[in-house]
C-alpha cells in the first residue's frame, strides 16, 4: 500500500508542478482528439442525418455496418491506416506516419462510426412532425434539415462527446500511428503504457488522473445532454 500512496503523492506533485512531460502528453492527446472529432463530426453528422431521413435500398445493411464499425478494435484501425501511410502504402509519399497528423487520421476513422451512429439515432428518434411542419411553413429541403438538426441538437452534441470519449482514451491508434515520440506524438495513453513498463508508475499515475478527469468530465457532459 505504501508503494501506492507514495506513487500517488509523486503523481500529484508532478501534476501540481506542471511537469513538462505530463503537460506535453495531455496537450498532444487533447489536440489530436479534438481535431479528429472535428473532422469526424464534419463528415459524420451530415452523413448520419442523410441516412436517417432518406429511404433507400440497403439502408438496414448500412446501419448494421455502421454499428459493427463502432466496435472496431483500435489496433485494427491502427493497422489498416498504418498500411495506407507506411512508405510502401498508397499514401506513403505524404510521410505522415509517426506524426500527429497520422494519429488524427486514425482517430477520425475511429470516431466516424460513433458520430454517424449517434447522429442517426438522434434524428430517427426525433419528433416525426418536425419535417412536415417545416415543409408546410414553406421551408425548402435544406432549411427543413437544418431545423431538424437544431431540434435534435442535444443528441448531436452527445454524438460528438461520445466520439471524443472514445478517441481520447484509446491507445492502439496513437501507439501504432504516432509512435510515442516524446514532445511530438506522445499522448496520455501511450505515455502511461510506456512509462509504466519502464517502472515510472507515478508518472503513469499522474497521466491516469488526468485521463480519468477527462473521462469523468465527458461522462457528466454526455449524461446532461442525454437527459435534455
Amino acid at each position: 500500500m505504501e508503494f501506492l500512496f507514495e506513487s500517488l503523492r509523486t503523481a500529484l506533485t508532478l501534476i501540481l508542478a506542471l511537469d513538462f512531460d505530463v503537460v506535453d502528453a495531455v496537450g498532444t492527446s487533447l489536440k489530436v482528439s479534438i481535431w479528429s472529432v472535428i473532422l469526424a463530426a464534419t463528415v459524420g453528422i451530415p452523413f448520419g442525418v442523410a441516412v436517417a431521413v432518406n429511404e433507400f435500398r440497403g439502408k438496414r445493411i448500412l446501419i448494421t455496418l455502421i454499428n459493427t464499425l463502432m466496435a472496431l478494435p483500435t489496433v485494427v484501425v491502427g493497422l489498416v491506416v498504418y498500411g495506407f501511410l507506411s512508405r510502401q502504402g498508397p499514401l506513403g509519399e505524404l510521410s505522415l506516419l509517426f506524426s500527429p497528423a497520422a494519429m488524427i487520421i486514425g482517430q477520425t476513422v475511429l470516431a466516424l462510426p460513433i458520430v454517424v451512429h449517434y447522429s442517426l439515432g438522434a434524428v430517427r428518434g426525433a419528433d416525426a412532425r418536425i419535417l412536415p411542419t417545416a415543409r408546410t411553413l414553406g421551408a425548402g429541403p435544406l432549411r427543413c434539415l437544418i431545423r431538424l438538426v437544431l431540434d435534435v441538437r442535444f443528441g448531436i452534441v452527445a454524438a460528438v462527446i461520445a466520439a471524443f470519449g472514445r478517441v481520447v482514451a484509446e491507445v492502439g491508434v496513437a501507439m501504432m500511428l504516432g509512435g510515442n515520440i516524446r514532445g511530438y506524438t506522445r499522448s496520455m495513453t501511450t505515455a502511461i503504457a510506456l512509462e509504466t513498463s519502464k517502472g515510472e508508475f507515478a508518472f503513469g499515475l499522474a497521466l491516469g488522473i488526468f485521463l480519468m478527469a477527462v473521462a469523468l468530465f465527458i461522462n457528466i457532459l454526455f449524461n446532461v445532454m442525454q437527459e435534455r
Partner: protein
Amino acid sequence: MSALYQLKDIGRRYGTRPVLDIDSLQLQAGRLYTLTGANGSGKTTLLQILAFLQPPNSGNLIFRGLPVTWSRGVLRQLRREVTLLHQSPYLFATSVYANVTFGLRSRGIRGEKLRRAAMAALETCGLSGFEGRSARELSGGEAQRVAMARALALQPAVLLLDEPLANVDSETSSLLLQVIRSLPKAGTSVIMTTHDPRHQSDLNSITIHLENGCVVSNATSSHSGIL
C-alpha cells in the same frame, strides 16, 4: 368566384386500404369550410393532400385552375400559399418568436417587415409579450395559439386546420374561433376539420361531410343545419 381547389377522382390508399375516394369536389376561394366525419373517414388525409404534403394515388388536383404536378419546385411554391396546422402542432425547440418567424424567414422576409408581421400575428392570438418565451415551456392552449400565430404570420391564401379546437380550454377555443371566423374577410380561405357540430354553426361555414373517404354531403350550415 373562382375555384380554389378542384378535386377529380381523387383516390388515396395506405397499403391496400383505401382511405379517400372523392369523385368530384370544388372549393371556392374566400370561404370557410368545415370538414366533418368519423375518425378514419379521411379528413386528415384530405387535408394532407390539399396542403400538398402527400400526393393522391389517383385522380387530379387542380389549384387555382392549374393541375398540381407534385414536382419538387412546384410543391415548394404551392406550399407557400397553403399552410396546414396539425391537430397537435409541433413547435420547434426554440423561442416563440423564432417559431412565429420561421415561415417568414423561409420566404426571405427579414428586418422590420418580419418583426411587424410576427408581432401582429402574436397579438391576434393574444400572445403579446410571449415572444421571448421558450416554446417548450408553454401550456397546451398557449402552444396551440403559437402554432396559429405562426400560420397567420404567413398570411396564407389557404389555411388548413386539423381539429384546432380539440385539445384547448374554452377561453382559447373562443379566441381561436373568433380568429378563424375573421380570416375569409382578410383574404384567407379556411378548411377546418372538426368533430364538434357547434363549430359549424358558430363559424357559419360550408360543411363537407366525409364517410369512408367519400364526400356524402356538401352544404352551408346556415342553410341546411348541422349535418
